[in-house]
C-alpha cells in the first residue's frame, strides 16, 4: 500500500485556476463542492438501485413463472393414474388453497378434502371448497378419458358426510385419445383465472351458450347477466360484498392468509394468490413488487380498487351457476364440475374468466353468524326465480394474458 500523501485527486493537477476553482464562501473550492455533491448523489442513487435490485431478485420479477412452484403447469401431460392427478391439480379452486388429497392405485383414484387448507370464515359452509373439489374431479375425468382409462366417477362413495368426495374407477374400457373432449384436455394447461381488465368487446350470446355444457350434471343452470343495467347491479353488489369482507376483520384475515408476497413464499408454499396473478400492467406490477410487501389493510384497499375500477368496470358478462339447493354436497361437487367445464370451454374460445365469489362468501357468512340477510335477497333479485347462486364469475376478451398460479406437485398431494 502506498504511503504517499493523497495528492492524487483531480484538484492537484497543475493548471491555471479556473472560474469553478474559486472558493465558495465557506472556503472550500467550488469544484470540490460540486464533485462531492455529484459523487454523494450518485452514491445515494446507486445504493437505492441496489436495494431495488434486491427486491426484483426477491420477487423474481424477471422470472415470474419460474421455479418449482410453477413446474406442474409445464409437466402435466403424463400417462397413467398419476398423469390424471397431474392434470387434476391444475383445476380452479378457492384462493388457490388446493385443499385436496388423492389416493391413487392402478385401478382407481379417490379424492378427499384437506380440511387443514380451508379458507375459514370465507367459506364457513364449505361451499367453495366442495365446488373446488368438483373442478378437480372434472379435470380428473377429462384426463382419464384422454388416456383411454375408461373413468367411472362415483360422487360421495362413502356417504354424504364422509371424507372422500369422489372416486374415479379406471376401467380401461376405451382406447387412448378417444375421449369425448380432447380439446378440453388440451385446455387444462392453458386455463388460468384472469383478474385483469377485459376489452369492451361483447362476447356473443352464441359463444356464451357454447360455454355451458350440463351433460350429466342435472339440476344445474347458468344465468348470464349481460345487459348494462344487470351488470351494473351485479357490479355494485360485488363491490358491496368486497367492502363487507374487508370490514369483517376475520374474513379479511382469512383472505390475507392466502396471499404470497415474495418469491420465497411462493416457492415454499406453492399455493395462494400472487401479485403476478392480479392482471396488472407490467410497470404497475413491477412497482408493486419493488415496494415493501403490503399490509392486510393495504391489500384490502387494493382489492376494493381493483373490484371497482377493473373487475366490475370491464366485465362484459357475469355468469352465475345456480341450483335449487346450493347447500347439498353432491350439488356443489356437480357445480364444480360445471364450473371447470365452463372455464375450459372458455379457454378454447379464448374468453377470459375470473371467479368472483365475494357475494356468496357474504351470504354464507351472514348465515353462519345468524346476521340479517343482506346479500342473499339482493342477489336473488338479480337472478331468475327459484335459482339460487352457487358460484359467480365474469367473462370477456382479455386485455392481457393471465399468469400461472403456483401449484403443489403431485407427490405432495398423493398418498
Amino acid at each position, binding site marked *: *500500500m*502506498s*504511503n504517499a500523501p*493523497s495528492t*492524487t*485527486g*483531480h484538484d492537484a*493537477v497543475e493548471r491555471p485556476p479556473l472560474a469553478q476553482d474559486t472558493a465558495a464562501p465557506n472556503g472550500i473550492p467550488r*469544484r470540490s463542492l460540486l*464533485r462531492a455533491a*455529484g*459523487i454523494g448523489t*450518485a*452514491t445515494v*442513487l*446507486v445504493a437505492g*438501485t*441496489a436495494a*431495488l*435490485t*434486491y427486491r*426484483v*431478485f426477491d420477487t*423474481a*420479477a*424477471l*422470472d415470474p413463472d*419460474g*421455479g*418449482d412452484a410453477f413446474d406442474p403447469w409445464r409437466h402435466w401431460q403424463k400417462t397413467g393414474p398419476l398423469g390424471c392427478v397431474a392434470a387434476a391439480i391444475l383445476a380452479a379452486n378457492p384462493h388457490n388453497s388446493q385443499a385436496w388429497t388423492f389416493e391413487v392405485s392402478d385401478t382407481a383414484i379417490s379424492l378427499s378434502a384437506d380440511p387443514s387448507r380451508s379458507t375459514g370464515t370465507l367459506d364457513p359452509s364449505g361451499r367453495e371448497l366442495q365446488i373446488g373439489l368438483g373442478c378437480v374431479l372434472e379435470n380428473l375425468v377429462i384426463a382419464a378419458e384422454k388416456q383411454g382409462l375408461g373413468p367411472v366417477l362415483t360422487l360421495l362413495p362413502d356417504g354424504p358426510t364422509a371424507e372422500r368426495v369422489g372416486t374415479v374407477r379406471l376401467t380401461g374400457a376405451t382406447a387412448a385419445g378417444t375421449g369425448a373432449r380432447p380439446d378440453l384436455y388440451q385446455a387444462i394447461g392453458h386455463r388460468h383465472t384472469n383478474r385483469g381488465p377485459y376489452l369492451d368487446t361483447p362476447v356473443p350470446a352464441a359463444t356464451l351458450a357454447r360455454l355451458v355444457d350440463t351433460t350429466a350434471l342435472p339440476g344445474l343452470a347458468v344465468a348470464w347477466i349481460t345487459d348494462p343495467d344487470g351488470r351494473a347491479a351485479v357490479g355494485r353488489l360485488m363491490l358491496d360484498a368486497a367492502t363487507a369482507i374487508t370490514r369483517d376483520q376475520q374474513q379479511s384475515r382469512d383472505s390475507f392468509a392466502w396471499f404470497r408476497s415474495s*418469491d*420465497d413464499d411462493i*416457492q*415454499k408454499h406453492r399455493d395462494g394468490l400472487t401479485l403476478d396473478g392480479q392482471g396488472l400492467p*407490467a*410497470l404497475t*406490477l*413491477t*412497482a408493486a413488487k*419493488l415496494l415493501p410487501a403490503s399490509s392486510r389493510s393495504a391489500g384490502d384497499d387494493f382489492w376494493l380498487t381493483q373490484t371497482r375500477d377493473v373487475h366490475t368496470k370491464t366485465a362484459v358478462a357475469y355468469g352465475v351457476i345456480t341450483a335449487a339447493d346450493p347447500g347439498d354436497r353432491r350439488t356443489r361437487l356437480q357445480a364444480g364440475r360445471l364450473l371447470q367445464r365452463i372455464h375450459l370451454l372458455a379457454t378454447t374460445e379464448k374468453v377470459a374468466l375470473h371467479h368472483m365469489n365475494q357475494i356468496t362468501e357474504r351470504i354464507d357468512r351472514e348465515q353462519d353468524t345468524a346476521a340479517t340477510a343482506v346479500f342473499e335477497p339482493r342477489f336473488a333479485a338479480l337472478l331468475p326465480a327459484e335459482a339460487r347462486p352457487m358460484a359467480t364469475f365474469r367473462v370477456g376478451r382479455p386485455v392481457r394474458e393471465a399468469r400461472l398460479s403456483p401449484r403443489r406437485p403431485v407427490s405432495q398431494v398423493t398418498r
Partner: protein
Amino acid sequence: VSRLVTGDRQTAVRVVLAVGGVLGVAAGLAQAGFGSRIPTWTGAKAEPLALGLLTITLSLVAAAGAWAWRRPDQLLPPTVAVICASIGFSTVGRLWYLPGPLILAAALAGVRDWRAAAHRTRDSWTQILLAVLGCCDLLLAAAATPWITLTAATSGAALLTAAVLIRGRSRPAVALVVLGTVPFALIAWTALVPVLVLVLALSLLALTRRVGAPRLAG
C-alpha cells in the same frame, strides 16, 4: 511453504485465500450434488443446484485473488474476495462456515495500511459505484428467464470490466457500458432496475470524464 515459514505475510495471505477458495469449491460441489439430502448443513435451500454452482463461481473468483494479489497495495483482489465471501454466507449454509471466514480473514489481513486504503477507496469511488451496478446486474441474472439471464450477466460483466478499464482507457469503458447495459435495459425495461442501471452507469461515466479519470485501486 518456505516463504510461509520465513514469514512472508503476502504469500501467507495468498495461500490462505487459495485454501479458502478450494474449500468453497468443495462446499459448492456438495450443495450442487447432494445439498437437498443434508439440508441442515446446506441451509435447506430451494434450489441447491443453482446455489451450488454460484458458490463454486464465488469461490473460484475469490481464489483467483490468490493469484492476482501480488502486491499488498492492491485493493481489488481483497475487495472482490470480501464480496464473494459475504455472498457465500447465504448460499450453502453451514458449509461456508470454514471457507467464508478463511477468505475474509485473508482478505482483511492482507491490507497493510488502512489509511492509505481509505484514500484509495475515496479516489476510486466512481469505479466502485460502477462495479456495484455491475453486481446489481449479476444479481438480477441469478433470478431471470434464460434469455434475460444471459443479457443481464453480459451487462454485469461489461460494467465490472468497465470499472477496471476506466482508469486509463475511457473510450473502451464507455463502449462496454453502452453495449452491455443498453440491450439489458431494452429487454427488461419493465423491471425498471435495468433502466436505472443504464442511466446511472452513463451518469457515472459522464461524471468521471468531467472531473477526470479516478485512480484505480487495483
